[in-house]
């Protein structure tokens, strides 16, 4: 991206496209070019640990899945051009400039791993068996240089002991200037250790050298505990001095200082440097060109209450460019940025959409079965191995086959046009394509069927490329026989296929947001600003939720002022209806068409609301401690109470304060970390120091989890003389009330002795507890974890969706989080809901389960087996499956003891016909 000119809503973006030398549109991804390429180059995808060709594809999952030529290593031999049947090679390709007009821009340029080459003491680059965590990821990967076998780089020996060194390139102002915490390294190190143990054939010893373990994400603490307690990963609180190599064995000796200040040495067969995230120079240059403000670490500057807005209006940011974060956080933020951008573009939605006209369907049930088989050469991808003409001839001999053809590329536009003609001319009513994988090409061929008036489910594919020519290249004869088998199987199933009707359901384009806190209100605005009606249900009399008790963010932003503005915007919005003092008592329907019954107001009158989606924003509260004299002595307060007190009374009257972390978190009752309490403590401590610089403040902690840019405040707190002392879970501080104050006794891990402080005030960093949603969850049938937080559909891939379609999640109902994170997630949920609401109707898959009521014994097996609780026993006393809710997995069909359930398109006969065709004549 060269430049962005213009105003929000009307940007002109200038782009430079670098030459690929292979046309990605023509390239079929067949890979012949790379196979023939004589030049070997270093494979940077595997971080230089193995080789690739000069003609290459970066990695198997790349999009587009098209090859390119690495012109720096290409010798111009011309072999690839000769090989390419798709004629995609263009040595004359050159740099192109283009301009596009857009209304908003989202910047997600990402980050790079810190390069530890400059840190001499760690020996990276000097000792072969010291690798970065990125390299180690590749080593563990099945697509990596060692194909997933755990080996060290020096001698390809299996390591017996591996050490991870944390905070390389993070939390370190002296050596690299990166004062922030990279937020992800603790978790990936734990993960790498666990996977390494899994991959190892011996009893691999894994040790993680760290200052703090920052497993602050949802359920991360449980993972950390499992690694520690069940899998024996060792966690060593330490600072590493130097790493030296034993030159005879290649082993590495780590010299480190432990918590008590003692220096120790331990030898490992391999060392992994957990490198931090860093903004690359190319990205800072881009930001400069675009006039985006960066902070001192080169992350984009954002406002705590507008976390995805860059300094330049109309340009939004997401991912690590916004600040260090993990994949769930990045994916969430990406959706948030999409919502923020979409708000401004809502008017334009759908204006460029083209609709395909589909002719009326031909009735095929009454006519004789006429199957057409199209065998694809896929250039030479298939034909180079499989004898395609022989397969085609064979196909012609199969029952019901009335037409056979072979094509160079079946997927090409001209072949598709030809196919349409052929289908019509020959009155084909079932079509088999023998080519590549249905995963990528089934929809294309199905469209062709539809264009001919055939139901799209009258189609079957035989994968004679991925499952045949590609994997049996060295045995063409056997591959040809296998292709015949696959075609015979496909034809057999095709003969039994029935047209299926895809149900279309209209969508009620209104959203219900449950919970009127900061997250709920932001989600509501995210949708309302895009033109959708929203109803917010809040059980309290006022909007605001937990944030009504909060004062300022750690950055100093005024939460109450923000809340006031937010409530004004919400209540003043013509698309938003707010129901306070309201309780959800009933819920029914399915994605796009829900009905919720609500008891509204003090009068408890009942209302029924129809809506298409649900956003859960039920929130969380501060834990009410039962520990440390809380509630028994007025001098013991929680951090939120302390925050309020500072707001009202300041801190002139307090000179000694002790804070205890992890109260109500990371214990047996609540295994998880509450994420926000470390920063609450530091925030309040710094405030006290502002009021009263002489105040003595002690923060007793287990791990300081000042992730991301919060680390700066931790550094500042230490510089201001705030004392941090670690305690272990089995030896917590002892608290006693005396007339002089609250006496707190704790063991100092450096001095190795007990210290007693008599404080004016004891602040407990009480964790978060999810709002009580037990009843709500049972009404809406939503899954929650042990701690009462709702469970998302997929931690990384669908972080704000629930498995129940049409239901989304944000804020602290998901897990504890900061206000800016809750806002981000709220926008993300709104964005995901928008995808749903922006359609007027949705087409449901026809692959759903169906009950034969005559056979059903009402045994409840399907009811109990369905992962989505879809089947129910109806008024007639038999099982009934709502196609709108069915996910099509077929579990019920397999489990049914009365064989009363069939999964359409995978009926038992259809599945077994393939088995029977395959094994025809064997017995």
């Amino acid at each position: 991206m060269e430049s962005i000119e213009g105003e929000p809503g009307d940007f002109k973006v200038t782009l430079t496209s670098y030459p690929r030398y292979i046309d990605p549109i023509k390239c079929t991804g067949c890979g012949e070019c790379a196979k023939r390429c004589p030049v070997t180059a270093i494979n940077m995808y595997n971080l230089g640990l193995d080789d690739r060709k000069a003609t290459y594809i970066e990695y198997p999952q790349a999009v587009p899945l098209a090859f390119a030529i690495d012109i720096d290593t290409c010798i111009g031999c011309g072999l690839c051009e000769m090989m390419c049947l798709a004629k995609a090679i263009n040595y004359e390709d050159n740099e192109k400039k283009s301009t596009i007009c857009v209304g908003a821009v989202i910047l997600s340029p990402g980050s790079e791993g810190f390069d530890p080459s400059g840190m001499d003491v760690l020996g990276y680059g000097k000792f072969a068996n010291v690798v970065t965590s990125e390299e180690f990821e590749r080593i563990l990967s099945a697509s990596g240089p060692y194909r997933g076998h755990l080996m060290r780089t020096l001698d390809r020996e299996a390591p017996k002991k591996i050490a991870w060194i944390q905070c390389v390139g993070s939390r370190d102002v002296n050596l690299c200037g990166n004062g922030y915490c990279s937020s992800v390294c603790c978790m990936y190190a734990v993960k790498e250790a666990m996977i390494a143990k899994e991959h190892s054939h011996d009893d691999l010893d894994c040790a993680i050298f760290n200052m703090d373990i920052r497993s602050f994400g949802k359920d991360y603490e449980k993972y950390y505990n499992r690694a520690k307690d069940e899998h024996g990963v060792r966690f060593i609180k330490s600072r590493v001095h130097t790493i030296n190599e034993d030159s005879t064995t290649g082993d590495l000796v780590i010299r480190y200082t432990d918590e008590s200040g003692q220096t120790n040495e331990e030898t490992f067969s391999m060392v992994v440097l957990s490198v931090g995230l860093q903004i690359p120079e190319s990205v800072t240059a881009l930001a400069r060109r675009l006039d985006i403000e960066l902070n001192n670490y080169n992350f984009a500057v954002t406002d705590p209450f507008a976390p995805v807005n860059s300094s330049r209006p109309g340009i939004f940011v997401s991912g690590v460019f916004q600040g260090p974060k993990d994949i769930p956080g990045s994916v969430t933020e990406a959706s948030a940025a999409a919502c923020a951008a979409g708000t401004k573009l809502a008017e334009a939605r759908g204006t460029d959409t083209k609709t395909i006209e589909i002719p009326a369907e031909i009735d095929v049930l009454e006519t004789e079965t006429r199957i057409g088989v199209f065998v694809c050469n896929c250039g030479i991808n298939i034909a180079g191995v499989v004898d395609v003409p022989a397969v085609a001839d064979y196909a012609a001999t199969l029952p019901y086959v009335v037409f056979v053809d072979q094509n160079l590329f079946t997927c090409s536009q001209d072949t598709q046009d030809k196919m349409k003609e052929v289908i019509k001319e020959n009155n084909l009513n079932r079509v088999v394509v023998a080519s590549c994988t249905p995963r990528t090409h089934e929809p294309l061929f199905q469209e062709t069927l539809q264009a001919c008036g055939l139901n799209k489910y009258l189609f079957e594919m035989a994968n004679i490329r991925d499952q045949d020519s590609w994997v049996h290249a060295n045995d063409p004869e056997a591959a040809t026989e296998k292709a015949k088998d696959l075609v015979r199987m496909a034809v057999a199933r095709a003969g039994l296929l029935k047209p299926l009707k895809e149900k279309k359901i209209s969508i009620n384009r209104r959203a219900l947001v449950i919970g009127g806190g900061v997250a709920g209100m932001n989600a509501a605005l995210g949708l309302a600003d895009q033109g959708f009606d929203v109803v917010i249900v809040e059980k309290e009399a006022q909007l605001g939720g937990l944030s009504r008790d909060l004062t300022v963010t750690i950055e100093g932003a005024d939460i109450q002022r923000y809340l006031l503005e937010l409530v004004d915007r919400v209540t003043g919005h013509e698309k938003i209806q707010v129901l306070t003092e309201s309780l959800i008592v009933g819920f029914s329907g399915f994605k796009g068409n829900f009905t919720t019954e609500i008891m509204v107001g003090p009068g408890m009158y009942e209302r029924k609301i129809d809506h298409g989606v649900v956003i859960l924003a039920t929130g969380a509260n501060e834990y009410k401690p039962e520990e440390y004299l809380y509630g028994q002595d007025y001098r013991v307060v929680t951090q939120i109470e302390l925050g309020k007190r500072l707001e009202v009374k300041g801190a002139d009257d307090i000179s000694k304060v002790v804070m205890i972390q992890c109260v109500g978190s990371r214990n047996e009752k609540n295994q998880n970390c509450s994420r926000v309490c470390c920063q609450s403590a530091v925030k309040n401590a710094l405030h006290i120091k502002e009021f009263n610089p002489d105040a003595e403040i002690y923060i007793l902690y287990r791990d300081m989890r000042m992730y991301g840019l919060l680390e700066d405040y931790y550094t500042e707190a230490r510089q201001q003389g705030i004392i941090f002392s670690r305690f272990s879970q089995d030896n917590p501080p002892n608290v006693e009330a005396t007339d002089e104050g609250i006496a707190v006794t704790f063991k100092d891990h450096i001095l190795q002795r007990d210290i007693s402080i008599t404080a004016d005030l004891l602040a407990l960093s009480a964790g978060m507890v999810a709002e009580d949603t037990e009843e709500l969850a049972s009404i809406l049938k939503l899954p929650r974890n042990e701690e009462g937080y709702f469970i998302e559909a997929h931690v990384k891939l669908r972080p704000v969706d629930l498995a129940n379609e049409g239901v989304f999640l944000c804020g602290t109902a998901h897990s504890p989080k900061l206000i800016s994170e809750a806002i981000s997630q709220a926008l993300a949920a709104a964005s995901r809901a928008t995808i749903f609401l922006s359609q007027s109707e949705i087409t449901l898959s026809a692959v759903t389960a169906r009950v034969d009521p005559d056979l059903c014994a009402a045994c409840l097996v399907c009811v109990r087996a369905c992962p989505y609780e879809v089947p129910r026993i109806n008024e007639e006393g038999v099982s009934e499956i709502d196609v709108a809710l069915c996910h099509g997995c077929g579990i019920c069909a397999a489990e049914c003891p009365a064989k009363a359930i069939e999964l359409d398109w995978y009926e038992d006969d259809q599945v077994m016909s393939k088995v029977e065709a395959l094994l025809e004549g064997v017995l």
Partner: protein
Amino acid sequence: MIVAEKKPVEEIIDYVKDFKKLLIAGCNECVTVCEAGGKKEVGILASALRMYFLNEGKKVEIDEVTLERQCDHEYLEEIRDRIDKYDAVLSLACGVGVQFMAEKYFSTPVFPGVNTCFLGAAEERGVWSERCQACGQCILGETAGICPISRCAKRLLNGPCGGSTKGKCEINKDLDCAWQLIIDRLKELNRLDDYEKIMPIKDWSTERAGGPRKVVREDVRL
């Protein structure tokens, strides 16, 4: 319902190994619900037996049918027209169904494909437990709704015995002590005083002690 368990394939093979034409008959009632003898199991068993016989070099024809209930004449009549085709029937119904089938088709050997276990409830999918021994004289009214006859290992009417430990039975620590359950529930119902009432010696004549039983309901007969 009646809870049954599948018999091991080996045992079934032993029954039917000398026949040439077999009918496997499932039942769409209790044994379907407890996943032991429904249409699905009929299919599995039929396939297994076909393979067994082929492997043994025997030519055996195996047909499958699943009747709505094998404990009613009308449903059993559905196979009347073809029963003579078969040398034997393998019934996956409970003991009742197997016998009823055998009574009805007197000259055809009928073998059981399941073990009929007890009258029980489905605690969860895949876990069934006994609740009733059909003693014919229900005492649940006196025992807080928990039956010591079916649920106490010694069917003590005045329990618990001295082996009750932490609420579990002496014979198996995974088994609840029925009398603990009774006492807990009496307490819940505020009826713990009833515990001290001695249950009289039971008249077992309505149980199997009195010989095969029969219920005749004149009010519904014609």
